[in-house]
C-alpha cells in the first residue's frame, strides 16, 4: 500500500517535471525541473532496492552533471530565450505523430501484456548488498566493456585537455 503510494508519487513527479522541463520558458527553471525529474527517478530506483543505482543517479546526474549544466546556463544571456516563440507552426504535426506513437505503445502493452512476464521485485531480505553485487559483476562478467568504457573516457579527457591547451597557445601567440 505504502509502496504503491510512493511509486505513484515518484512516477507522477517524474512525468510532471519532465513535461515542465520542456514547457518552462526560463532555462534555469527547466534545469531545476530536470533535477527534480532525475531525483524522482532516483526515488523509484531506491524503491526497487537498487540502492547503488539510486546513489549513482544522485551523485552523478543530479549532483555532478546538473551542477555543470546550471553553471553554464547561468553564464548565458537568458533574455533571448525568454522572448522566443516556443512552438513553431507545425506543432499539430508533432502532436499527431506523438499521438500515433502513444497509441502504438498502448496497443503494444495491451496486446503483449499476457505474454510478457513482468519482473517481480525480490523480497528485501533476500537481496545481497547491491554495491558489492554491482562491483563484482562489473569486474567479472563485464570486465572488457568496463575497461573499454574507461579507455573511452580517458580519451575524451585527454582530448579535452589538448583542445584547451591549443586555444591557450593561440591566445598567447596573439598577445
Amino acid at each position, binding site marked *: *500500500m*505504502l*509502496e504503491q503510494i510512493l511509486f505513484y508519487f515518484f512516477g507522477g513527479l517524474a512525468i510532471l517535471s519532465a513535461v515542465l522541463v520542456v514547457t518552462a520558458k*526560463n532555462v*534555469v*527553471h527547466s534545469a*531545476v525541473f530536470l*533535477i527534480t525529474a532525475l531525483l524522482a527517478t532516483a526515488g523509484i530506483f531506491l524503491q526497487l532496492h537498487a*540502492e*547503488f543505482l*539510486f*546513489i549513482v543517479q*544522485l*551523485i552523478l546526474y*543530479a*549532483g*555532478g552533471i546538473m*551542477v*555543470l549544466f*546550471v*553553471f553554464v546556463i*547561468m*553564464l548565458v544571456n537568458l533574455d533571448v530565450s525568454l522572448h522566443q516563440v516556443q512552438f513553431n507552426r507545425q506543432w499539430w504535426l508533432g502532436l499527431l505523430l506523438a499521438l500515433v506513437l502513444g497509441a502504438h505503445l498502448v496497443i503494444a502493452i495491451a496486446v503483449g501484456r499476457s505474454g510478457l512476464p513482468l519482473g517481480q521485485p525480490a523480497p528485501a531480505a533476500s537481496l545481497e*548488498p*547491491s*554495491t558489492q553485487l554491482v562491483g563484482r559483476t562489473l569486474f567479472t562478467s563485464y570486465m572488457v566493456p568496463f575497461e573499454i568504457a574507461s579507455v573511452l573516457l580517458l580519451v575524451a579527457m585527454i582530448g579535452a585537455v589538448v583542445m584547451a591547451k591549443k586555444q591557450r597557445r593561440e591566445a598567447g601567440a596573439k598577445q
Partner: protein
Amino acid sequence: MTGLLESAKPFLLPMLYAVVIVLVLPLVAGYIVLMERKVMADMQVRLGPMRVGPHGLLQPIADAVKLLLKEDIIPDEADKLIFWIAPVLSVTTAMLALSAIAIGPVFQIADLNVGLLFVLGVSALGIYGIVLGGWASNSHYSLLGALRSAAQLVSYETAAGMALVGGLLLAGSLSTKEIVATQAGDGVWFIFGAPVGFFIYLVASIAETNRAPFDLPEAESELVAGYMTEYSGFRWALYFLAEYANMIVVAAIATTLFLGGWLRPFSSTPAFNFLDYAPAALMLVIAAYCFWRVPKQPVQVQKGFLAVVGLLFMGLAAILAAPLFASAGSLVAAAKPGLHGAFWFLLKVTLYIYVFMWLRFTFPRYRFDQLMRLGWQFLIPLSIANVMAIGIALVLHRESGWGRVPAFLLMNVLTLGVAALLASAGEKKEKAKNEPMVGEA
C-alpha cells in the same frame, strides 16, 4: 486504512528520531555559532559575547529572535520562486544527510547499505541552494559568489571522494555501522591506517563547506556576502543554519570513517576501561566550573541561570554515570552503549569542528587561482596516490603476509614522498611563472 497503518509501523521510531534532529539542529547550530565566537575571541585575546545571559549563553536565542523579527526583503528583479526555494533546499539537504549518520550505535534514522555515499551525495546537492540562490538574487555579487561556490565544490569533491575511498578500502563497507564495527574489530582507527587520506579530507571538507581560508564564495572583502548578499531575516538564517549543519555532516563523516565513530579511545584494551568514567567526569567538571562562576555574575537573574546550567550538567553526568553503576543486565545498564556512544561521537564531532575554527582564525584567505591549484594539482593527484598506496598496503598485508605496521608504514611514507614531490613541482612551476615578471621589473 489499517493496511497503511500496519505498513507504516517500522517507520515510527526513525520518524521520531527525524523530528528530534529537525528540532534540535537549529539550537545546536546556534550554539556552534556561539562556540565559534568564543573561540575567535579567545584567539584574539578578547572575551566575546558576555552580555546576554552569563558568558553570553543566551546569545544564540537572542540572535534567532532578532533574525525572525527582521524585515524579509525580496529584490524586485529577483526570480521569486527560486529565491524562495533556494535556502530551503540548502537546509533540507543538510538535514537529509544527517539521517544516514549513526550518532552512537542506537541513534540512527536509517542504516543504508550505501550509507556514506548517501551522505556525500545528498550533501553535495546542497550546492543548488547556493547556486540557485545566487542566481535568483539577480545581483552581480551574488552571481559571482554562486559561480565560485560551484567551481570550488566541483574541484574539491573529487579530492574528498578519493580521500574517503582510501578509508573505505580499509572498511570494506559503505554502511556507517559496519565501518565503525570494522574499526572496533581491527582495534585501530582508520586515521592511523590512512593519515594522508584524513588530511586530504580535512582540507577538502573545509573547502566544501565554504569556510575560511576557503570562503571565497562569501568573501566579504570582495563580494559583500557572496551568494547571500540579497538575503535577509529568516532566509538568511536558513543559509546560516545550512552552513553549520553541513559542518556537522562533514565532521560526522570524518568521525565515522577515520576517527572510530562512537568508539571510546582504546576501546578494545581493558586496561583503559577507566575511560568509561571520562564522560561523566567531564560533565562534572563543567558543572563545577558553572557553580564556581555563579557568585561572580553581576545580576541575580544571571546567578540563577548559571546555577540552573550547572544543575543541567550535573544531570547529564548522572545520566552518563548511571549505566556504569547499575547492576548488570538491568535496563539502565543496557543503555550504556547508546549513551556513551553518542557522547564519544559528539565529542569527536565537536573537536573536528573546533579544528575548523582554529584553522579559520589562523590562516588568511586563499586567492582563487591558489585555491584551484591546490585542489587540482596537489590534492587530487595526492588522493589518487593515496588510494593506490592503501590498496598496495592491503595486498601486502593480506596476500603477502606482511605485518600490518610495516606495510602501512611503508606505503604511507611513500604517499608522503609523492606529496613532497607534488609540492616541490608546484613551487617550481610558480617560480618559472613569476620569473619573467621579476626580470621586467
